[in-house]
C-alpha cells in the first residue's frame, strides 16, 4: 500500500496563524493555531511583530504536521495564504525586520494618500485600485519617509519589502519573491503586465531594489529545510475564491466574517470597475495566464451582530440573533444601515453614518434582529448588482463561506434578496483549502482544475422563496434607508 500523502496550508491571518493538513479528497486531517499580538501604539495605528509571526508559523507547521502523527516525507506540498497588504521591511543580510509590520487596518497613511490625490487616476488605471490607506505602497512610502537612513538602504537593496507571503517565503526558502495576487494589492504592480510599474513606483517613491520578484500563485518557489516543496501563495480572499473552485468567469464567492468580501472571477482580462469595486488578480497557475477578479468589500456584517450583543446586550451570543429574529415574521418596516465608519463598496461615502430607519411603536427587538440580518443580505445585493453591471456577467449562484453561514435565516434571506440559490460548501475552511489546492496543483498532487472541482460538494443550498414584488419593495426601502445615512459626518 502506498504511503498516503497530504498537502499542508499555512493560513497567516490578521489575528492568528494556522496550519491545516488536507488529504486528497480535501478533508481536514489536522489543524494547529497560534495567535499573535495586535500592537496599537497610537489611535489608528495597528502593528504586528513579523518575527513573532514567523515563530508562530513554525510552531503551527510543526504541530499540525508532527502532532498529527504525520511522518516525514508524507507532506507532498506546502501552500501559503495570508492577510493581505500588511507590510514588512527586513534586512537582507540578517533577515531581521527593521521596523514593526504595518497592518492593513492601519490608517496612519491617510494624510499621505490625500497628498497623492493627483495620481488617483494612474492608480485606478494601472493598479486597478482606489487610493486608500489599506494598500502596501503608501505604507512603504511612510516607513521610508519616517525612518532616517532607510530610503538609502532600500535603494542599495539592503532593506527588502514584502507582504506576509513574501516574508514567509523568504524564511522558508531563502528567496525574495511574492505572488501576483499579493503584488496586486501594493498599488505598485501593473495589472496587465503583472510587473512592477515604473510610473507607479515613481508616484509612490518606492525604490525597485527593495521589491520582491513577482511569481505565479502556484509554482515550486523552493523547499523547506525538511525538503517539502513550498508551492503556492495567495492573498486570503483570493485563496477562498480558489478554494471555492470559482474557476469560471461569473463564479462568485462571498466570505462572511466581521466584514464580508465578495470576489467574482472575470476571466483572463482585468475588468475596470465603474461601480466602486476594485480589480485584482484572482490567481495565476504556473506559466498560464492570470485570472482576474472583481472585489467588493463590505465593512460591517458579522460585526453588526456583535454590536447588537456587546453594545446593546439584546443577545448573549452571536448565534442567538437567529433565535431573536425568528420571534417575528418580518422586519416590521425597520431597516438598519450599519454605516459605522462610512459606506464601502459600491458607495464609498466616508460621510455616511449608521441609521435605523422606519421605526414605529410596533417595532420590537425581534424586528431589529431581522433588520440586522437583512442588512448583510442587502449590502451583498448592492455589491452583486455592481459586479453584474461591471462584468456583464450574471450571478447564477452565490458560494458562501465564513462563520455566518451557520445562520440559516441569513442564508435564506440572501437567496431571497439575490434571487439566486446560495450554496454552502462542505469544507468551510475555504481559505486554507485554496492555498492547499494551488500547492497541490503545482506539484502534481492534483492533476488539474477538474479534479479540484470534483472535490467540491454542496453541504447545503437555500433557494429563493419570495416573489419579485416583495424583493423589489424591500430593495426600494433599503435604498431609501441608505440615502438617509449620507452627509452626516462633517469632515
Amino acid at each position, binding site marked *: 500500500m502506498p504511503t498516503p500523502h497530504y498537502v499542508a496550508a499555512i493560513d497567516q491571518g490578521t489575528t492568528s496563524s494556522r496550519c491545516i493538513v488536507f488529504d486528497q479528497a480535501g478533508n481536514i486531517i489536522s489543524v494547529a493555531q497560534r495567535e499573535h499580538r495586535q500592537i496599537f501604539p497610537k489611535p489608528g495605528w495597528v502593528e504586528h511583530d513579523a518575527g513573532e509571526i514567523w515563530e508562530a508559523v513554525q510552531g503551527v507547521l510543526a504541530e499540525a504536521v508532527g502532532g498529527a502523527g504525520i511522518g516525514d516525507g508524507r507532506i507532498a506540498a506546502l501552500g501559503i495564504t495570508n492577510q493581505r497588504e500588511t507590510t514588512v521591511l527586513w534586512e537582507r543580510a540578517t533577515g531581521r525586520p527593521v521596523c514593526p509590520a504595518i497592518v492593513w487596518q492601519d490608517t496612519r497613511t491617510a494624510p499621505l494618500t490625500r497628498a497623492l490625490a493627483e495620481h488617483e487616476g494612474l492608480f485606478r488605471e494601472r493598479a486597478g485600485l482606489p487610493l486608500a490607506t489599506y494598500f502596501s505602497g503608501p505604507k512603504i512610502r511612510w516607513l521610508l519617509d519616517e525612518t532616517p537612513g532607510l530610503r538609502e538602504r532600500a535603494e542599495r537593496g539592503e532593506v527588502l519589502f514584502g507582504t506576509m507571503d513574501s516574508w514567509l517565503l523568504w524564511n522558508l526558502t531563502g528567496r525574495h519573491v511574492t505572488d501576483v495576487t499579493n503584488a496586486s494589492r501594493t498599488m505598485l504592480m501593473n495589472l496587465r503586465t503583472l510587473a512592477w510599474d515604473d510610473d507607479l513606483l515613481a508616484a509612490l517613491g518606492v525604490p525597485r531594489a527593495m521589491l520582491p520578484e513577482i511569481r505565479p500563485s502556484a509554482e515550486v518557489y523552493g523547499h523547506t529545510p525538511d525538503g517539502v516543496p513550498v508551492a503556492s501563495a495567495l492573498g486570503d480572499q483570493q485563496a477562498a475564491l480558489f478554494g471555492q473552485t470559482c474557476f469560471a468567469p461569473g463564479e462568485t464567492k462571498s466570505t462572511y466574517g466581521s466584514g464580508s468580501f465578495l470576489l467574482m472571477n472575470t476571466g483572463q482580462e482585468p475588468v475596470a470597475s465603474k461601480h466602486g469595486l476594485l480589480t485584482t488578480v484572482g490567481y495565476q497557475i504556473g506559466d498560464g495566464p492570470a485570472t482576474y477578479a472583481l472585489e467588493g468589500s463590505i465593512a460591517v456584517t458579522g460585526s453588526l451582530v456583535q454590536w447588537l450583543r456587546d453594545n446593546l446586550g439584546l443577545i448573549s451570543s452571536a*448565534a442567538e440573533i437567529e433565535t431573536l429574529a425568528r420571534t417575528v415574521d418580518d422586519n416590521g418596516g425597520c431597516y438598519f444601515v450599519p454605516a459605522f465608519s462610512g459606506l464601502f463598496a459600491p458607495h464609498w461615502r466616508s460621510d455616511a453614518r449608521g441609521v435605523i430607519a422606519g421605526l414605529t411603536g410596533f417595532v420590537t427587538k425581534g424586528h431589529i434582529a431581522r433588520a440586522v440580518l437583512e442588512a448583510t443580505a442587502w449590502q451583498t445585493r448592492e455589491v452583486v448588482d455592481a459586479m453584474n453591471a461591471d462584468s456583464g456577467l450574471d450571478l447564477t449562484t452565490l458560494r458562501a463561506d465564513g*462563520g455566518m*453561514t*451557520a*445562520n440559516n435565516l441569513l442564508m435564506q434571506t440572501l437567496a431571497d434578496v439575490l434571487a439566486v440559490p446560495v450554496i454552502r460548501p*462542505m469544507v468551510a475552511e475555504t481559505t486554507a483549502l485554496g492555498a492547499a489546492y494551488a500547492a497541490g496543483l503545482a506539484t502534481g498532487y492534483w492533476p488539474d482544475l477538474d479534479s479540484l472541482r470534483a472535490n467540491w460538494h454542496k453541504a447545503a443550498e437555500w433557494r429563493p422563496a419570495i416573489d419579485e414584488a416583495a424583493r423589489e419593495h424591500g430593495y426600494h426601502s433599503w435604498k431609501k434607508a441608505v440615502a438617509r445615512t449620507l452627509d452626516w459626518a462633517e469632515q
Partner: protein
Amino acid sequence: MGETIQSVERAAAILRLLASGPRRLGVAELARALGLPKGTLHGILRTLVHVGFVEQDEASGKYRLGATLLHLGTSYLDVNELRTRAINWADALAGRSRESAWIGTLHEGHVLVIHHVFRPDDSLQTLQVGTYLPTHASALGKVLLAHDPYGEALDRPLEPYTKHTIVDPAALEEELDLVRTRGWAGETEELTEGEVAIAAPIKDPRGLVVGAIGIRGAVERLAPGGALHMEFVSYVRDAARAITRSLEHP
C-alpha cells in the same frame, strides 16, 4: 398544600440570605440571622457545597453562592448556538461517512431538525432544517428519548411508519435501555423503507443530553447484509464526542 420538608426550607433560607448581599457570610452570622444552631447549619451547608450551590472561601471559611447555582437559570442551550458549535464536526461526519448528517433536538415530543448537511454526491437534495421527525421511529429521536429527563414524550400511541417501526411501548422501553447502555441508537427501515440511520448523544458541560447527531442513508451502504457497519457507528460517536467537547471549551 401538603407536608413540607424542613431541611429544604432551611436550605432555601440560607440561599436567600447569601443572595441578599455581596458579602460572604460565616456560620455564626448565618446562625444568628436564621435563628438556628450552628450544628444544623453545618450539615445543610456541607450538602449545599457538595452540590455546588454554595462555595466556601478557603482563607476565611465564609460562604457565598456557588457558580453552579448562578448558571442554573441561564444554562438553556440555544439551538442556533448548538448548530454554530457543531457545524464543522457535522461537515466532517458527512465527509467521512459520505452520507447526509443531521442534528436534532427534542421539541414538544418530536425531533426538530436543527442542522442538515447534504450527502456529498451532488445529487439534488433539499434542506430539511426546521422539519420534524417522530421520536420513536428515528435514531435521533431514540437517543433523545433515552436521555429525556422528563420522560413525557411517550404519552401517546406509537404510530407505525413502516412494518419495522417499534409500536409496542414495552419493546420501545427495551430499545431505549439498549441505547443508554451502548451510547448510540440505530434505526433500520423504521421510518422509511430502504433507509437506515445511526445517532449518538451530544451533552452539555453538566452531562445533560442537549441534542443528537447522526447520519442517514441507504440500507445497502450503511448496513450491507442487514447488520449496521460499525465503522459508521464510530464516525457518528466520534462526531458526538467532538461536539460535546467543544461545548465544554467554547
